[in-house]
């Protein structure tokens, strides 16, 4: 079977049986070519993922197999006690904490904006606003870092002071608040702004897809606009909102530059959001230490990178599970 279609002489009657004419010919050639191309793309993705995983594991192996004492000796910033787990632990904690704050601030805000765009704003305003939110996504993270450390960190001080003053009895807001606010709280706020566009965009699309039928069912029962949103829009969008939040979480977990530029790092398991020098994230820590690191140091950093990779993977799988759990109550059937 040749891949180039053979040209028949002019006027010659094609003498193909129906079965042949269904398997040969230009159209099916293009079809098969496309099928192969898309299969190849799919395989490439899998191969890439596998390659990254293998790279991480191989490079991280020395840090895991070497004794903690030796690592501590060879790496200036490695802790004397606790070993590799003792090193990664606070980083994981800091990473999750920063991302969680971002999610807690970002998701409700994004849902609010998306609802406003999809169900409240007049069409012209909605378009402009949607465009504006998308623009937020186009700002490079280093600019967010600059803005966070130079503009927000000094200005957020009064807010932190207020929180410390009135909610200080609650461990999260234990004072005195840092000044300037190079804290995980500030980082969380900046990350929230950074994940806002993706969450808003996904939510907006999902809200707009609410079946007209269900909205009208609610309206005909005498629902106000808010009640339509509660009975028809939000339940329908539930799994979409979760996906959106997970996309945002993925971005927040891996964000490097902005965290690096804002946060004053520390290695504690501390819930004191308003204090500096307590937390650090995996990504920012890698960026921070990598340029000066020796072989053992690089291996250790890659081990932390592997942990971040696993966390992100777990977050994604968790999201999928949550979405599928109530599948028969979703709008899909």
């Amino acid at each position, binding site marked *: 079977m040749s891949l180039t279609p053979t040209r028949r002489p002019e006027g010659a009657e094609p003498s193909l049986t129906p079965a042949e004419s269904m398997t040969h010919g230009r159209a099916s050639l293009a079809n098969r070519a496309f099928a192969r191309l898309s299969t190849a793309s799919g395989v490439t993705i899998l191969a890439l993922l596998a390659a990254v995983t293998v790279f991480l594991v191989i490079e991280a192996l020395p840090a895991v197999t070497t004794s903690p004492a030796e690592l501590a000796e060879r790496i200036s910033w490695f802790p004397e006690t606790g070993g590799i787990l003792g090193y990664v632990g606070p980083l994981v904690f800091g990473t999750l904490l920063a991302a969680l704050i971002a999610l807690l601030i970002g998701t409700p805000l994004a849902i609010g904006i998306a609802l406003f765009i999809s169900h409240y704003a007049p069409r012209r305003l909605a378009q402009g606003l949607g465009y504006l939110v998308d623009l937020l996504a186009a700002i490079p993270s280093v600019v967010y870092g600059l803005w966070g450390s130079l503009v927000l960190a000094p200005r957020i001080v009064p807010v932190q002071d207020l929180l410390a003053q009135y909610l200080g009895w609650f461990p999260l807001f234990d004072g005195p608040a840092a000044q300037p606010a190079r804290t995980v709280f500030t980082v969380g706020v900046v990350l929230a702004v950074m994940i806002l566009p993706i969450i808003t965009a996904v939510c907006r699309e999902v809200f707009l897809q609410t079946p007209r039928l269900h909205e*009208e*069912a*609610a309206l*005909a029962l005498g629902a106000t606009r808010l009640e339509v949103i509660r009975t*028809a829009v939000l339940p*329908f969008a539930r799994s979409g909102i979760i996906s959106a939040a997970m996309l945002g979480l993925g971005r927040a977990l891996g964000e490097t530059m902005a965290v690096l530029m804002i946060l004053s790092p520390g290695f504690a398991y501390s819930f004191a959001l308003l204090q500096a020098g307590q937390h650090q994230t995996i990504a920012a820590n890698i960026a921070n230490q990598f340029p000066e690191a020796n072989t053992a140091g690089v291996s250790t950093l890659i081990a932390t990178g592997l942990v971040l990779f696993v966390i992100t993977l777990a977050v994604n799988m968790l999201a999928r599970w949550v979405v599928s759990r109530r599948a*028969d*109550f979703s709008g899909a059937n």
Partner: protein
Amino acid sequence: MAKRIDVSDLNIYYGSFLAVADVSMTIEPRTVTALIGPSGCGKSTFLRTLNRMHEVIPGARAEGKVVMDGVDMYASDVDPVAVRRHVGMVFQRPNPFPTMSIAENVLAGVRLNNKRISKGDAQDLVERSLQGANLWNEVKDRLDRPGSGLSGGQQQRLCIARAIAVRPQVLLMDEPCSALDPISTLAIEDLIAELKNDYTIVIVTHNMQQAARVSDRTGFFNIAGTGKPGRLIEIDDTTTIFSSPHEQATEDYISGRFG
């Protein structure tokens, strides 16, 4: 409970397009009124003006009067949300809320209207409404399963149960059987005959036999041509419309000679 509706000189527009012109009719309480007519003549459009559902379509507006037991439903101080709580609606395609269970679906309207009801009252109401919709025996063992898991005919009866659970005065139905098989259709027609004792019912249908079977009065809408507004040609007792209508157009339509 049931109320009388007076419509006078109603014109309905989509933007600048006059879709339905000059409709006047009186709908008596505890009767079934069927609206028939060719596709596009504005039956759905007219039906929606009876509970102000047309207002949720951008650009749609109505001019004229709709009066329910002496209350002008279009008066500026009347809240469309309140109107819809008194005038329920069942749609052409069954539309139970897919994320809610059967029981929650029945209670959906009540939860909007007076937020809190006790658990016992809720159970009673679910049973009463489902029985009212002739659905209770089929679903009583799976009230907590999603409403979307029912058959089309059951879903439509669930929607009727949901609509009557808030005890409206008027029930509007837009081709409620068009997506259903003959058995489910009969079930709903029987139900309409029962509901008539408590509610004022207006039903749009393309099925002439159905109109003849279920309704007391029948209104015939027609349209002169594309781009022209639909008009109410005549409305009379169903027996009169189907045996000796006053208008030639009505006679042509019900005997299958139209166009």
